[in-house]
């Protein structure tokens, strides 16, 4: 099973990288950009049947830092289905 995890900074946590990228986009002349937030995408191949509890635990204990980040887990496909 392929799993895609998106880790994002929580709302209200200042994102210096996003701010710098926003500034660059403005400087390049792109108009209408109102905010930029940068996160992290993690793709994993896990055994079919890996429990939601196990995936949540991986995120909470290592893949995300719950002090500053939130995560979402998306299951993409089972092995061989693609």
């Amino acid at each position, binding site marked *: 099973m392929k799993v895609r995890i998106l880790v994002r900074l929580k709302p209200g*946590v*200042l994102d*210096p*990288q996003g701010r710098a990228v926003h500034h660059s986009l403005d400087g390049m002349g792109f108009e209408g950009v109102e905010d930029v937030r940068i996160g992290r995408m993690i793709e994993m191949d896990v055994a079919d049947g890996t429990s939601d509890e196990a995936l949540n635990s991986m995120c909470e204990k290592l893949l995300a*830092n719950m*002090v500053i980040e939130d995560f979402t887990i998306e299951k993409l496909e089972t092995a061989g289905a693609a």
Partner: protein
Amino acid sequence: MGFRAAVITFPGSNCDRDMACALELVSGTAPIRVWHGDAELPDNLDFIALPGGFSYGDYLRSGAMAANSPVMRSVIDAAQRGVPVLGVCNGFQVLTESGLLPGALMRNASQNFICRTVPLIAENTQSAFTRAYAGKGTVHIPVAHHDGNYFADEETLDRLEGDGRVAFRYAEPCNGSRRDIAGVLSVGGNVLGMMPHPERAVEDAQGGTDGRLLFESAIAALV
């Protein structure tokens, strides 16, 4: 018996030797060097130091993987028994990632790596790490980091301030840290994490000796 300290080395630590030299210089006893893969710490330690560096190449987040290495379970047990634990720079990041200290260390607000000597104020001079800073006013200790921007929510920050757990504060803005916090103590006061490097300011040849007071405090606290 001398001061029985341990310095933990993670893959990518690069201030472990500086830390060991500083501890030996100030205490007169060479610390025990411990590899991160060792599940057990030596018995009867007086002090544990987590050094600066780039453990695991700062992959994922600074300190995240080191916080889950085998030796950290023993470090957490020791901290809960009251053994003094000092984490400097990457060591501070490991302490927040392991949950021994609150908050997180984010990318510097400027996006730049900051490497210079900064003015610091010891806000709490009652702790085992900071007593020798009483009456010293502003001191100067080097920083060298990319991820030193201390973050915690307002409630946590208020609690830290109210409980005297802000050990050090930058005397001028440095890296975007909330409330200019440079070092934080645990509830019991026996765990200190700080971004500045006291081990780089222990003898005149390094340009200053203000870091020496931290090690002197820790050693005096045991007597």
